């Protein structure tokens, strides 16, 4: 099987003045194409740190991260940015839409940065996607005029508009109520099924695991285990045994 992401023996330390905070300690993880992978773990366990490394917004202190065949530690800032633009889509916990742009413009933004499509092609693709995530009628609205769930749909559309191989989502449902959260997860799962896009998302919401093809459990910056969704759900809680 082809690995779109390959994390091998990675450590990440943060320097807080004199103190060195080890956020990840010898993490190894392979993600196959088309997976819908959940990363679970308590607060401070290193989920965001791991996603940052995979998402090429940070590089490891030790070990290697390979994304789409490229080892990120060896890429320049420019190349990392390019990799993010063309290969990766981001969905943020707090949506991170550009407040001064309309829904349509927000979604179009990555395409503009890519400079690959004509205006008409861009428009078609954006509108089709907005249709797909169910907010086409809001295309002219500003993000501030939308509800949290609608905003997250815009964020999903923006992450998917470049048809990336890999979509990363850091706690995509944390700021949503449970019904909306479920809808969003359904949408993500649907896109994962139809487009064969690989999804990696972090969460500490146990209900979310059911959607995942597999759950990687983190604790104290280390991979505890990698289990199937059923197993994780059956375990009924986090690796430390604390239910959420």
């Amino acid at each position, binding site marked *: 099987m082809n690995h779109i992401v390959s994390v091998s023996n990675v450590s990440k330390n943060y320097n807080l003045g004199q103190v060195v905070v080890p956020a990840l300690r010898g993490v190894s993880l392979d993600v196959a194409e088309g997976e819908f992978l959940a990363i679970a773990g308590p607060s401070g366990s290193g989920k965001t740190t791991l996603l*940052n490394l995979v998402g090429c*917004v940070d590089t490891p202190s030790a070990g290697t991260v390979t994304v789409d065949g490229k080892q990120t530690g060896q890429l320049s800032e*420019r190349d990392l940015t*390019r990799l993010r633009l*063309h290969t990766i889509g*981001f969905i943020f916990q707090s949506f*991170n839409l550009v407040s*001064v742009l309309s829904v349509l413009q927000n979604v179009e933004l990555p395409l503009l*940065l890519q400079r690959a499509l004509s205006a008409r092609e861009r428009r078609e693709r954006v509108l089709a996607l907005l249709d797909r995530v169910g907010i086409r009628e809001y295309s002219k609205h500003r993000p501030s005029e939308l509800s949290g769930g609608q905003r997250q749909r815009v964020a999903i559309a923006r*992450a998917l508009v470049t048809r990336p191989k890999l979509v990363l989502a850091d706690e995509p449902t944390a700021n949503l109520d449970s019904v909306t959260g479920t809808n969003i997860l359904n949408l993500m799962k649907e896109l994962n099924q139809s487009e064969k896009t690989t999804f990696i998302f972090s969460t500490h919401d146990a209900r979310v695991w059911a959607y995942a093809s597999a759950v990687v459990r983190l604790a104290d910056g280390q991979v505890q285990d990698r289990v199937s969704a059923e197993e994780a759900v059956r375990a009924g809680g986090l690796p430390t045994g604390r239910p959420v």
Partner: protein
Amino acid sequence: MRGYLDTLKVIALIALRNLFASRLKTLIVGGIILFGSLLVVVGTALVDSVDASMSRSVIGSVAGHIQVYSSKSKDELTVMGGMNMESPDLTPIDDFAALRRTLLGVPNVKAVVPMGLSSAIVTAGNTVDVVLERLRDLARRRLAGEDVQAAYESEKDHVRQIIKVLSADMDNVRKIQNEKAISQDDLAAAAKAASEELWAGFDRDPYPALEFLENRIAPLASDADMLFLRYLGTDGDAFAKSFDRMKIVDGTAIPRGQRGFLFSKWVYEQQVKLKTALRLDRINDGISKRSKTIARSEELQRWIKQNVTEVKEIMLQLDGQKTASFRRLLQGELGSQQSDVAKLLSEFFRVDDANFAHRYRFFYDKLAPQLELYRVRVGDMLTIKSFTRSGYVQSVKLRVYGTFVFEGLEDSHIAGELNLMDMVSFRELYGSLTPERAREVQEIKTMAGMKEVSREQAEAELFGKPDLGETAPIGRAGDEAEAVLRSLAGRQQREDRASQPYDPAQLEQGDVLNAAVIVKDPRRISRTIKDIEAAGAKAGIPLRAITWQKASGLVGQFVTMIRAVLYISVLIIFAVALVIINNALVMATLERMPEIGTLRAIGAQRRFLLGMLLVEALAVGVLFGSLGALLGAGIVGVIGAAGIPASNDILYFLFSGPRLHPSLSPANVIISLAIVLAVSAISSIYPGLLAMRVSPRQAMQSDD
């Protein structure tokens, strides 16, 4: 390419939306930029206009484009606007013909005008002296049997009138100041002059009385003002041709080949005109040209007060007939029964805003025709005394041919302080050895059978010592000759000769102190200056050539000064603008860290963010800069249509006329926009660097 444009569009969109989102900040920054660019447009347009008009004034009046003088000179040449009245000490250039030839050989030179600057104090007769001389003449003719009885009686009456005026004046002074202000001798003299004994025997034997009056009474009048005249010796024809703003007002130009003097109209008005009339003119100007009112202007009130108290000047001019005529006219005008003309005049000159215009007209229509308005009239002979280079007093008697102005600069004393004189007379006053004088010296030497006359001998014979004791004699042929001339020929002879014509060729042959150069292409002045100095060196005439700016001294530097002030204030404003724009952008950047992080995370390169901030800064700059420039252009347009009035004579000169009509040139707007763009670009550098350093991880860390 298309994609590039679209990216630019989205950058612009984000930038503009951001600007709009923080409107208040944008407005503050924009306001400063607007003001800055407005200042640049209006300021540079004004300074450019003043520069252009002033250069017209300077170039068109005396300086020409370039002034040339000997590089051996002690002083630097300034032809106008010098603070002190001393003329600069220049070494003469001996052969003007050679100088002209050399200068005309330089490519860009169109015309050369010979010049020399000097000054003299001139006594323009005391009214009493003039009247007494007339009376003496009439008395002589009457005794010789001519029929001049009526004129004689009238003149005698005039003298008695004068004595009365002077006595009354002395009484006044004693009353106002104190008993001792007038000496007992003067009082006694006045009493004697008024006494019947003096006049009883006058018809029989007028001479002792006349002598007494001339010696004791005339000096009491003390209105024998000294005229301080700065004059320019030149070739009248060449001058008029090269400085075509020069226009004759009264009389004629100095005819070719004639010696003569032209008063600058300004000097003629200010120094030669009856003071009372001059003050009336000034009051009139103040009201009509500068919209002042007597009620509110202390200056006008002061002039009125002077006119009211100083009627003596007019009284001295009135003989019996005129006194009667004035009494009748003034009584009628004022509706008064007063018989004392001095009091009537005082009353007449006590004007207010309501009656000024009428009285002003009355003065010129009715009173002035009976007065000598100018102490020196066109056609009179003027004796000019001046120190020569070697320190002797030299004097020349010249006919006053007329008065002149520089068109558009009529009211400017800077352009009007120079009078004109023919070059030949100038050389004489200056003490040059003209060919004519060289010949004369030779004749005298032959006549006297002398080979050599030493300076000491000559001086001992006539003066005992030079007029300026400390001036060291220079061992020049001219000085020797001058000494000879003084000792043997005497002054009278040369004064007589001064009214005789000269050979125009003489103009060319003699020396000059400096010369004005008119060029064909004024844009190449600095190049031409170098060429002139090089040509001079080659021809063996060591020359210094200076621009009109330099030649016009402080006046020429005035615009440079204003420009400096303008540029410094523009610099300060834009420095402030730079700091404020920078701060605003830095704050905006810090506020938008998550957004910038997000953009970076989804694949925006650093230069995208740099572009975003640049566009943001430039958009504010262009928008408000253009608004400012537009507003500035509007202001310049309005000012240009209305004109800025020249409220004093320095402005008058700078404006080259009564009003400055500034106009806008594309350069003014371009400079303003260029500065605005540069400042905007520079001010976005630091926030740009900050934005570039924002990590895409910022996007992930916005947990709220």
